[in-house]
């Protein structure tokens, strides 16, 4: 790959544009962090930075048993959904990327159309069905719709990654004396890992951030996830807005996503396969 040499003026323009976008994206986040660190009394003081930094809202949030339960639910449901969606997605994507069977395009198209389907239109029926089936307010009751709506995403991401894998390596491994399973474990799996991580993270973020299904299909701490739980926050008195607690809880909910993305960013290096074939 050749690196382009940029003129100074271009660099300044690019830099300014990037700064603009990043600022635009980060101001609400900064505002949220700032709110969460203000004392209750200062919440309405119209200042961007807190006058006195206080962790009272964080303490309140973690004292609340509902929120801890919600965090547990979020993590569990998110993890199981991503695992299941990625596992199923891997089988589908492998077939789509490797095998030549009739209806390949149809499957990809159908997957895409499911992704386009507005979730809000099935919430009503789903609510009634889940109540009849006993899935209402259970983990499975959320995992199923999350899987359904993220599978297309997983299939598309994974099949794009799988297509890029130099599959001749599998043949090379077979000639080197590997069984099909050994070839997969020692050669293909390490190369597919970045794609699998990417898909898993995307699915996890979807499940983690979802509000619609969570608010409609849960009613207690048994399965209510963090975004839904935040909506049920109450102020310490009837006349007080729970702004500070909501801000603190939102920060707490955002942190894992940021940590995950930063941690796995390195694993998602597309350059991992560089050097396998040709020059």
């Amino acid at each position, binding site marked *: 790959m050749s690196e382009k040499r940029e003129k100074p003026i271009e660099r300044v323009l690019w830099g300014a544009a990037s700064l603009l976008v990043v600022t635009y994206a980060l101001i609400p986040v900064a505002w949220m962090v700032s709110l969460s660190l203000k004392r209750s009394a200062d919440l309405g003081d119209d200042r961007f930075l807190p006058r006195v930094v206080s962790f009272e809202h964080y303490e309140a949030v973690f004292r609340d048993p509902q929120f801890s339960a919600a965090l547990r639910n979020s993590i569990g449901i998110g993890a199981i959904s991503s695992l299941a969606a990625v596992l199923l997605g891997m089988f589908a994507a492998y077939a789509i990327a490797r095998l030549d069977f009739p209806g390949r395009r149809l499957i990809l198209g159908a997957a895409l159309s499911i992704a386009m389907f507005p979730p809000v239109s099935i919430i009503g029926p789903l609510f009634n069905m889940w109540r009849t089936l006993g899935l209402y307010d259970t983990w499975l009751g959320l995992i199923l719709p999350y899987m359904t709506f993220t599978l297309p995403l997983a299939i598309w991401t994974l099949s794009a990654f799988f297509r890029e894998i130099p599959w001749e*390596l599998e*043949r090379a491994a077979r000639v080197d004396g590997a069984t099909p399973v050994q070839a997969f474990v020692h050669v293909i799996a390490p190369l597919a890992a970045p794609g699998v991580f990417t898909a898993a993270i995307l699915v996890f973020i979807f499940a983690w951030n979802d509000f619609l299904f969570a608010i409609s299909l849960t009613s207690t701490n048994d399965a209510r996830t963090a975004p839904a739980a935040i909506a049920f926050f109450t102020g310490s008195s009837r006349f007080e807005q729970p702004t500070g607690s909501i801000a603190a809880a939102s920060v707490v909910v955002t942190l894992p996503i940021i940590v995950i993305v930063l941690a796995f960013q390195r694993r998602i290096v597309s350059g*991992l396969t560089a050097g*396998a074939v*040709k*020059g």
Partner: protein
Amino acid sequence: MAEIELDGVTKRFSGVTALNRASFTIRDGELFILVGPSGCGKSTLLNMIVGLEDVTEGEIRVDGEVVNDLDPKDRNMAMVFQSYAIYPHMTVRENMAFPLELAKASKAEIDERVSRAAKILELEEVLDRKPRALSGGQRQRVAMGRAIVRKPKVFLLDEPLSNLDAKLRVQMRTEILRLQRRLETTMVYVTHDQTEAMTLGHRIAVLRKGEVLQIGTPRELYECPKNLFVAGFIGSPAMNFLPARWENGRLVLPVGSIALSDEEGRRLGAARGRLIAGFRPEHLQAGGEEQPGLRFEVQAEVVEWLGADVFVYFDVALRGFEEVELPEDLGLQGDNGDHRSLLARVDPSAGLREGDTFELGLDSQYVHVFDAESGENLSTARD
């Protein structure tokens, strides 16, 4: 050590015949070349020998044992792919150790064999690097290294040098040759480059569109090509071709006519249809000495001085002869209008310059006559 026998081996991909009834034997310890234009079925044949591709019909035997249904891992053959196919997530050392680890060799033996291979291939310095930090030539050598660490029965190389630049290619070619002589292991080498084939091989099989056209030593292919395709494909610069007719016991060319031996005459007399005459550039002699055969005068269009030889390009008017139709996949130049461009490879002492008119001599014993329809060489005896 292994002898590979192909018996009517055919491969069809949903209707497309990639290889049609190949039957020949690759001898033990031989460096055998499969050569042909791309798409002729070379890789398919190699993949069938190594077991990556099923055989549609026929039998492949290794040392007398049918291996059609044997898994690649049980064939103990090593293969070098055109794309090298080295594992990007492993270091050079791990790449070379991989086949040994799969074979459950001991740690000490793995170390020993990897370092020996690394020494032979001059990879000692880069053993702990990942492939992406290697040059093209080094990657190629890693692929070779992975093949030689395990003492396989057969080496199979699929265009191993085609991704290298010209200089490195020549250097690696010699290294492969030396390696093969040293290990004395049967090697099947695939290439589309006839120069590579001619310089490397003990024996060469020329493939075209899934058919094995001819098998022989480089010399046999060069001197006695069985058909027009082999004649035009083997040899660089390529053979000259002119349209020809058989008239009154003589072979008539646009530049004159020659007498042929009685036997050739009989075979040509029996042939129906149009003929094509072929002769190699070095068999055209410039200068005044008396020679048996044909003499004709031409004008040098372009003169290329190469030190030991001089290439002289000249045009021959077709004079009412039909145009020569050569197989398209040869990639040779056709006729331009009523002229055909030919090449003579002459001695520099003739001192020819562009624009000079001079006389060329052609000894009739070097003239091949081909049937224009079937491409069959009518002047060499059929075996």
